[in-house]
């Protein structure tokens, strides 16, 4: 390729590069910079606030902030339950779709993808109303079968949010796994059948190992999303504040520190910490899953 041509090629990426600098790099740099400062009241607060360089103090406070650390632990524990559960259902449904004729599969795929078409906020609104003891049909339905469940009780809030996320996510994950399944060479199945393998055995021993990559990817995407969960608990809090505290998830704490406590410097430090935790978690997960594959 001629030299000048290369530079013209580079020119196509210039708008993106500029935008990336201003909308990604600069904000991150600004957040890191802000996280090293702290607004301090001078004297008795009469002289107004001054901004002082405090080094890593905000980070130290963040790491020892029990509310922040609890919220991370809470979300991680929740992720360890909800994500495997959701992916297992998605995998089973993808295998089911793969086991029927493509015409039938197409029909069910559309129906199972309906939740994915619904915006997350709207999905949360709908489920919150389904859960609601006043307007939702689930409470009378539970009574019919002898359950006395209250989805707005603090102990039920994670199952309630978990169900909402699972409902919203299975279709999308199923489609990703299903399309990976389409890449399995069909001859393998025939050979296995001739060897007398049952359909279940084929699914477990050939299909599942084959879609491993898709499972790792969907799990990784889910982990990244889960550590940043905000919309669903925020909407729950909007309706039942007694169920969901304002420090329920890491992003809720960051948002409150920035906008309600006007403690922007601390919020910046917490968001940098969260980014580091997210990076480490993704890296560890990726390493763990790719080593097993060898």
């Amino acid at each position, binding site marked *: 390729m001629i030299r000048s041509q290369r530079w013209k090629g580079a*020119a196509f990426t210039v708008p993106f590069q500029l935008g990336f600098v201003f*909308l990604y790099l600069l904000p991150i740099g600004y957040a890191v910079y802000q996280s090293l400062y702290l607004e301090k009241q001078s004297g008795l607060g009469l002289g107004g606030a001054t901004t002082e360089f405090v080094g890593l103090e905000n980070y130290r406070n963040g790491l020892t902030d029990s509310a922040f650390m609890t919220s991370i632990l809470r979300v991680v524990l929740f992720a360890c339950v909800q994500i495997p559960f959701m992916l297992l259902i998605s995998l089973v449904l993808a295998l089911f779709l793969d086991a029927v004729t493509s015409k039938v599969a197409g029909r069910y795929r559309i*129906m199972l993808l309906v939740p994915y078409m619904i915006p997350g906020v709207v999905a949360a609104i709908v489920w919150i109303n389904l859960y609601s003891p006043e307007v939702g049909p689930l409470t009378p339905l539970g009574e019919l079968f002898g359950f006395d469940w209250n989805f707005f009780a603090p102990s039920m809030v994670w199952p309630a949010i978990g169900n909402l996320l699972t409902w919203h996510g299975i279709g999308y994950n199923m489609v990703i796994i299903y399309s990976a399944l389409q890449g399995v060479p069909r001859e393998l199945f025939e*050979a296995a059948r001739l060897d007398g393998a049952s359909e279940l055995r084929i699914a477990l021993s050939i299909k599942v190992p084959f879609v491993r990559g898709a499972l790792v990817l969907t799990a990784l995407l889910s982990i990244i999303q889960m550590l940043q969960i905000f919309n669903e608990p925020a909407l729950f809090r909007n*309706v039942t504040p007694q169920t969901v505290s304002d420090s329920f998830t890491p992003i809720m704490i960051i948002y409150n520190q920035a906008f309600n406590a006007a403690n922007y410097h601390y919020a910046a430090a917490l968001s940098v910490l*969260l980014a580091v935790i997210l990076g480490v978690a993704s890296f560890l997960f990726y390493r763990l899953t790719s080593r097993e594959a060898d």
Partner: protein
Amino acid sequence: MALTDNRKENGTETAAVPPRGRTVRRRTRPDPAARSRGGQRFVLLGLVLASVYSLFPVYWLIIAATKDRVGLYQSNGLWFSDFHLWDNLQQVFTYEDGIFLRWTANSFLYAGVGSLGGTLIALATGYGLARFDFPGRGVVFAAVVGSFLIPIALLTLPLYLMFSAIGLVDTPWAMLIPCLINPFSVYLAKVYTEATIPFELLEAARIDGAGELRIFVSIVLRMMTTGGATVFLLAFVNTWNAFFLPLTVLRGEENWTLNLGLYNWTGKRLESGVDLTSLVLTGALLSIVPMAVMMVAMRRYWRTGVTLGALK
């Protein structure tokens, strides 16, 4: 390899594993269709149950949107009572001088214009990354992929401060500008370029004397209609669904998106004692409609888009 494992395990374990009725057939090895009839029934049952689970909330939402407040609180939630859909629609659209319409228009503006600009930038970038070997190309691509891991809060909070310093907070620009740069769109555009634009074609156009810009506009963009539509669709959905960014950068009601407006309506009851539940539900149903129409109309595109990220 999986196959040999399978054969080995099969001899020892199948007795415990398969559903009833299959053992006999396996021994006689009939044609594939007959072999799995029991299994097919089980599979179909699973799919039906999953579909009921997926569709039930939508079904309930449709029914709830036809009820007035009394019906919502007192009638059977699973079936229609008095039909009040038109009253509800009228209330949604006239509440506070038709603020709902304003939010709808805003959502369309941010998602439509923002995604259009973002898609054009992404297509150019994807083309540049896929078909030119310039210094720093690896860095740009690494930035694209690396940014998938950046938490929204880390970007949104400093953006808020930067935007407020230059007076953009609480204006449509605060939503539109961030939409212009979408790393995932760039990633998709690169993948699509690699799949649809052959090097030879570009060479031929160059030999014919076409300039690089001309090649991009009249050949590449035209061949990338499908890829571009997918990128646009996914970006549109993304912006339409956005919540944290608008919550942060939009303060005044008149600039809100549908999501923000509905969020605000759900909180009204505790905030000021006004119960807007039936408005919220009707509004929620309305806000799904554009998504559903768009997804169904463009399903050819988003099917490939949803799965592409996984395959590459």
